[in-house]
């Protein structure tokens, strides 16, 4: 049997069906995304599926979706393995795995989609099913987080729907990403950017992210942050064409949104008390960088540009590092970790901060190149400060994780082997990947030069120093409530919708007053039938004689 593109989304569904019959299949779900690796390797031709919705076509046509597919497969597979341990004793594990698999299906489908409709199908499936992951755990916090997530996801869906329809109309009904290079309208672009942005979670569309990540099961946080946020970025990249009047004009605005978001999220994150929330804010910050890349790409629009590679690399880098951190945070909050575990934990964190020899260093280097080539060269110093900020934020996260160890009972034991090994794989990935992927390898040699090394290292060192000083002062803040304005907004929205005043038209005949009159008329006419009738006859004749 030859594997083909259309098998990729079907295999998780098959697993789902099997699991419904034999629940123990859930231990093997980590296998479900793996056939995709074979396809990546093998690279069969893209296919069209006219039987399906309008324009359906699947395949891979650029490095971006190539690497995004890779990262999705890796993350989903490892996270599944991790979750298969963590959810083993969950009462609702069937529900969890169902949503998990649906989400996975959607994610894989959207990455290999070559047409907007298929992308939208996958995207929606993923977004909505992910709700089941966010709101999986019982209690009011997951419920609230889930509600906000869902409200924004649906809003995003609808904006994407509008943008999609507008775009299809603009392109004269063409239904393939490769045909979508015509100019885009302002409205379309804004719809799509906002719609996907709500999923990608960059500032200011990140509202749901810091709420959702802490309450979701660890594995879910990992895929949410690692794979699903990237889907939003991929959407923006696929749907909005570069180098058109609109995008060139939008570029600077978007760039500065990304830039501001990258810093804002750090500040907000530093004020948090929970490791996973801090990590979530770190994701928000990182999404800002991805947005900057896209903005730069919009303004050049060069199909062979290194920005495409950068985007792919940055996605891959952030995905594995952040997933590793989330899993680590999950482990830290439930099991006792030994020092070498902590050592392993710092690796992805440092990678995110741009440690040499890791993916982080490579992408940072690439990024600096790209910025210095563009009109934003002035903001170059900011990037190093950004690196420092990231480092600071991750140190905070690690400290909070460490803190959470105190609440764990002595007999909690060491992490389970399977969970640990899956985490291990991801944690080491930032070092391993540069050796395996050509684009990284190329950068690796450059980053090892002295100037580059110091440029990469000083932010990390400075951050450590600052952290050491500040950790003496305890940061108790009342910012928390304000930062979670999202929760308040979502509740308010719900209230407004339910109490929206809408009139209901009901016609009611009020006959009570009339009834009395009616009764007397009836009585009068039944008693006086004869006189009335005769009188009327006479009157009628008389009046007719007059009238004619």
């Amino acid at each position, binding site marked *: 049997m030859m594997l083909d593109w259309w098998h990729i989304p079907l295999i998780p569904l098959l697993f789902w069906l099997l699991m419904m019959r034999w629940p123990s299949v859930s231990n093997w779900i980590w296998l479900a995304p793996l056939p995709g690796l074979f396809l990546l390797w093998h690279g069969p031709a893209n296919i069209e599926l006219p039987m399906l*919705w309008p324009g359906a076509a699947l395949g891979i046509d650029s490095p971006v979706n190539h690497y995004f597919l890779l990262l999705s497969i890796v993350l989903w597979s490892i996270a599944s393995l991790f979750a298969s341990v963590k959810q083993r004793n969950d009462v609702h594990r069937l529900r969890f795995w169902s949503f998990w698999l649906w989400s996975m299906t959607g994610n894989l489908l959207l990455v290999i989609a070559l047409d907007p409709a298929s992308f939208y*199908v996958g995207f929606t499936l993923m977004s909505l099913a992910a709700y089941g992951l966010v709101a999986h755990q019982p209690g009011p916090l997951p419920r609230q987080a889930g509600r906000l997530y869902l409200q924004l996801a649906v809003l995003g869906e609808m904006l994407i729907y509008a943008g999609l329809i507008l775009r299809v109309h603009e392109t004269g009904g063409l239904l393939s990403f490769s045909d979508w290079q015509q100019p885009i309208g302002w409205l379309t672009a804004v719809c799509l950017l906002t719609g996907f942005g709500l999923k990608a979670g960059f500032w200011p569309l990140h509202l749901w992210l810091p709420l959702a990540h802490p309450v979701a099961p660890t594995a879910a946080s990992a895929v949410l942050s690692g794979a699903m946020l990237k889907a939003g970025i991929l959407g923006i990249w696929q749907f909005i064409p570069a180098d058109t009047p609109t995008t060139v004009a939008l570029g600077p605005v978007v760039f500065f949104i990304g830039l501001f978001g990258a810093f804002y999220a750090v500040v907000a994150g530093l004020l948090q008390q929970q490791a996973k929330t801090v990590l979530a804010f770190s994701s928000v910050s990182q999404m800002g960088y991805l947005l900057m890349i896209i903005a730069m790409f919009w303004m050049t629009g060069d199909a062979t540009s290194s920005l495409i590679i950068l985007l792919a690399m940055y996605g891959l880098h952030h995905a594995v590092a952040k997933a590793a951190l989330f899993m680590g945070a999950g482990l830290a909050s439930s099991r006792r970790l030994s020092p070498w575990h902590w050592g392993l934990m710092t690796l992805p964190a440092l990678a995110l901060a741009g440690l040499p020899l890791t993916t982080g260093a490579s992408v940072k280097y690439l990024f600096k190149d790209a910025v210095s080539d563009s009109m934003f060269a002035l903001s170059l110093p900011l990037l190093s400060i950004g690196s420092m900020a990231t480092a600071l934020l991750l140190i905070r996260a690690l400290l909070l994780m460490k803190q959470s160890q105190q609440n764990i009972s002595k007999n909690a034991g060491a992490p389970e082997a399977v969970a640990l090994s899956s985490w291990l794989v991801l944690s080491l990935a930032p070092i391993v990947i540069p050796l395996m992927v050509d684009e990284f390898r190329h950068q690796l040699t450059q980053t090892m030069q002295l100037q580059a090394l110091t440029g990469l290292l000083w932010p990390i060192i400075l951050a450590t120093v600052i952290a050491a000083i500040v950790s003496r002062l305890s940061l108790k803040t009342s910012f928390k409530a304000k930062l979670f304005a999202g929760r308040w907004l979502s509740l308010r929205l719900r209230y407004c919708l339910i109490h929206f005043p809408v009139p209901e038209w009901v016609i009611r005949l009020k006959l009570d007053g009339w009834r009395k009159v009616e009764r007397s008329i009836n009585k009068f006419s039944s008693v006086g039938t004869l006189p009335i009738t005769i009188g009327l006859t006479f009157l009628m004749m008389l009046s007719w004689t007059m009238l004619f």
Partner: protein
Amino acid sequence: MMTDIQTILPVAIVLSSLIPGLLIFSLKESQHRLRITLNLAGVFSKLLLVGWMLHGVSQGQQFSFSITFLPGADLILQGDALSLQFVALSSVLWLATTIYAIGYLEGSAFRSRFFGYFSLCVSATVGLALAGNLVTFLVFYELLTLATFPLVVHRGTDAAIRAGKVYLAYTVSGGVLVLMGVALLHALAGTPDFIPGGYLSPVVDQHQAGLTLAFVLMVLGLGVKAALLPVHGWLPQAMVAPAPVSALLHAVAVVKAGAFGIIRLVYDVYGIETLSILQLTQGLMILAAATIIYGSIRALQQTEIKKRLAYSTVSQVSYITLGVAMLGPIAAIGALVHLVHQGLMKITLFFCAGNFAETLNIHHIREMNGLGQRMPLTMAAFTVGALGMIGVPPIAGFISKWYLGLGALETGQPWILWVFVGSGLLNAAYFLPLLYRGWFAKPAVEWAAHPQARRPASVWNETHWMLLWPTLFTALLAIVTGILAGSDFSPLAWAQLIVAREFAP
């Protein structure tokens, strides 16, 4: 030989439900085996005949039957692509509903009466779909009112009778308006057969006022059944009817009759050309758009499952009207395909609501907590229906929304796109909480502790199989028609065929 069949087939399709219906009336309550046999015989023979006709029409054959009736207006039954879209929908859903109803009403009183009227109702619907001119349409339109009334008041409680009266007040008034409209059109232009492109363009200059009035009358009259804004009030009230009736009313028979009438009126009586001269559709569009939003908001405020579904119908059926009023081919595809898709999704939802009510006596939304554990399959079907209504791909509703949205842009009415967006948001707002309750919320009582609701041994026994299977069947259809929309046998393909014929130059 072939010509004979082409004459008889339309009549046979109507009779295949009418005759069993009449026979069922004469049965005693105790003869339930015979009754079921008759019912199923009717269902399957209808499906067979419809399949035959579908094949014939796709080959370009003409099916027509007529007898003289009024001066200048014969009774005509004919099968064209548009009528078959509706006929096929009603026949397939009749199958599901019949089985469902047999399970639902098992052991209750008045079953002969119920199934008799049920079959009559389907006959009227099919007749209405096959009607070849306005007068024939009117005949079946009124018969439909008559046949559905006993179903609405079936339970005979005070609430049911009240609802029945409200239903009648609306539908009979609507019927009178339609009658007046038809009579007015007859007076102005006679009553020829429906033809693509309409037949009124020759008289449009002479009778501007008359044609305008007739259009307003007809739309208001048809709007009653299609639950357009000022005249939608009967629909939420009619919820007291048994679940299969609500399902049939909302998905196939009544509301669709109204929507189908509007489609016929716009495409085959007035024609796009005439309507754009008269400039009548702008008002209809605004009305439909207002209904979509209004229905959604009202749905949000309901606390009973069936009421919420009812208002959702108010909103969703207007998608069809809106698509028709846009007067563009792509929008028309959207409208026609939504006729089917909304039917599949809404019938699923009503079946589910019926299952909840029948199995666990759950009527209120707040009682739905944790239903997913006790009735996972029904809840899954409910989820499919609800998501489809929101327009979530790849369920059928998305396909309709896709074409409707594109149609709105194509006809230069971009504001309508925002109506769909708003409606989608509201749909989500009123459906998703139900899904949350079903799948995530903690049940008020542990199902295991509930005497009547104890979880059965197998998932497949969560409720009576006759209630479960039709639900799953329609839910599956809703998914399949969405996923395989591009295939040759999908409602979408058929809608494209109709539009190709209607909009042919």
